[in-house]
């Protein structure tokens, strides 16, 4: 199984440990993983700000890097959703389509394609799960409180295999944290207020860590936690699933 490792730009630059954990995890399960060296960004920041027309060359670069893989896997529901919905390349429409259909968010890939049933991971901490909106509602990684459908959660399923981990959910189990891409800058006040409220909800469970499948949400929450001198830390789900503490 040839897997193309997609590490979103801001993870590449600011959270390399998440990329490392993702790579090691996929290798543990026997995937033949390679990281195309000329990848940059999925184009979401432009597209979600109304500049989808500007992301054409980004798309082209993405297709050039990720053609020819059986699967493309990335540790970010939001970027993966963007690719699934919007990746196009006029010169290589077939290859773009193949990518759209074979790009997976990490937990989705582990559960649906690799069908992981056990993990050699241990993380003896109290952890709160943050469901990121694009993964949850866009990629259907877990059931949603608004819909009258059977309950399930791919991230939770995986976290339940981690030794020593005590999982808690906030009362508002799937409310947005307020990151929202450029929203976090252009609607700074609402964005921060939403983040503070998310943290407060997790804090009532006395969590040591907040985890999730999107570094963007975690980066936003981390920024608020650090500013307020909180002891609560953020950690990407790949780091927990790959941990051997």
């Amino acid at each position: 199984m040839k897997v193309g490792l997609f590490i979103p730009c801001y993870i590449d630059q600011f959270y390399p440990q998440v990329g490392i954990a993702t790579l090691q995890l996929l290798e543990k399960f026997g995937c033949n993983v390679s990281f195309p060296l000329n990848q940059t960004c999925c184009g979401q920041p432009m597209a979600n700000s109304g500049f989808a027309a500007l992301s054409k060359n980004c798309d082209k670069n993405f297709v050039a890097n990720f053609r020819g893989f059986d699967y493309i896997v990335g540790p970010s529901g939001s970027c993966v959703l963007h690719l699934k919905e919007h990746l196009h390349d006029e010169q290589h429409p077939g290859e773009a389509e193949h990518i759209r259909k074979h790009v997976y968010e990490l937990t989705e890939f582990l559960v649906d394609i690799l069908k992981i049933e056990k993990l050699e991971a241990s993380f003896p901490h109290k952890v709160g799960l943050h469901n990121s909106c694009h993964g949850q509602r866009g990629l259907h990684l877990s059931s949603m409180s608004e819909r009258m459908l059977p309950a399930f959660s791919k991230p939770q399923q995986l976290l339940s295999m981690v030794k020593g981990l005590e999982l808690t959910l906030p009362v508002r189990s799937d409310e947005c944290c307020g990151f929202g891409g450029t929203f976090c800058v252009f609607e700074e006040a609402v964005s921060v207020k939403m983040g503070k409220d998310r943290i407060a909800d997790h804090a009532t469970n006395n969590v040591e860590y907040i985890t999730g499948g999107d570094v963007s949400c975690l980066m936003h929450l981390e920024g608020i936690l650090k500013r307020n001198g909180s002891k609560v830390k953020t950690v990407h789900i790949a780091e927990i699933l790959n941990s051997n503490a």
Partner: protein
Amino acid sequence: MSTSKLSHAEAAEQFIKDEPRTDWHDETLWFVRQKRDKAAHGLPEWEKLREWASQIKDHTLSNLDNYLLEFERNANANGITVHWATDGADHNRIIFDIIQQNNIQKIVKSKSMLTEECGLNEFLHAKGIETVDTDLGERIVQFRNEAPSHIVLPAIHLKKQDVSDTFHEHLHTEKGNNDPQYLTEAARQHLREKFIESELAITGVNFAVAETGGFVVCTNEGNADMGAHAAKIHIACMGFEKMIPKAEHLSVFLRLLARSATGQPITTYSSHFHKPREGQEMHIIIVDNGRSRQLGRADFRNSLKCIRCAACFNTCPVYRRSGGHSYHTAVAGPIGSILNPNIDMRANADLPFASTLCGSCSNVCPVKIDIHDQLWKWRQVLVAEGYVDTTKKIGLQGMAFVLARPGLYRFAGKAGRAVMRMFPWLLNNKLNPWYKQREMPAPPKESFRDWYIKNKQQ
């Protein structure tokens, strides 16, 4: 309508300054959202009902011309006078003509977001004619000279204390008495007088039935009925999207509307009007005001399926923390953010950006409007039409340029991280909106790619 000149982000920032009030607003609306969840979970066929409602609306919008004409024929046959208004000004003029022809002085009005959209109260006020809003929440905001901040709960931004102060000023209630029972009773006595005196009643329309030429008005207070039953003239105002083909379709919509709005099984009053009573005049004004333009926009026509339940308001994490007035339009919230750019693109260009695109709005929508996808599409339209801030435009153009060039991206990344490490104050200052209330991420020496080349590519 609000005369606020502030953008959504600016008005929201003002609102959030009072954090305890913001928390209270958030929690109150979340409580309504939870009531909606409970009611929806109580019906095993909930998702099926949504699908039916969506399909009935799709069908109606595709055959709207026929259904509107069928409605007009049947309404005329019932003795109702049907008027057509191309825009808000037209709508207001039709009402003013009826007022003048009948020499009307006393007007009561039940809740109608359409009349808010058309600015009817302001228009009549400028002509020296006062209307009394009879919905309790609407009456409260009318006393305060404010716009409703929510389409179902118009005064949800106010606390009991605010209402008490307002009633003390306008109804001379006891100062500092915040007892809801006492305040409601004061409003009831005051409104009763208005109902008795009224010569003209204006109501909205929730559903107009083509097959019967009748219409349905839903209220929890019975105030639409009190007005319409007492006055000698009843004018009902509706946007043309309120049409449904048959009376039997009401069984789907009436079950969805109140559950989605407040978690009630049905509104306390779902009043069916079919013809004027003897000696009464009944008018219905069917308003376009940009709706035909929206119908013609393939990406946005779905927004006309809206039945104004406000479920998308209550679930929206942005609305709950920014308050309805920050949307500076008659219809606030997520649905307002896709309806209002159609009415005035320039004035409302900020609204589709007042969202994190979390998608909760689309999930609660009883008629399955793809609200968050339409917000995304509006952003593309607004940028293409040039309604975007220059700084933002330059920033994103620069970003797109760098991200399309792997070498440049890597150089910029490395340089950026080095600058952040050596000169943190360049970013850690008040010009950076991220830094205002959040720390910047710690820049590592090595990118993932650097690590990969070192450890995996030998």
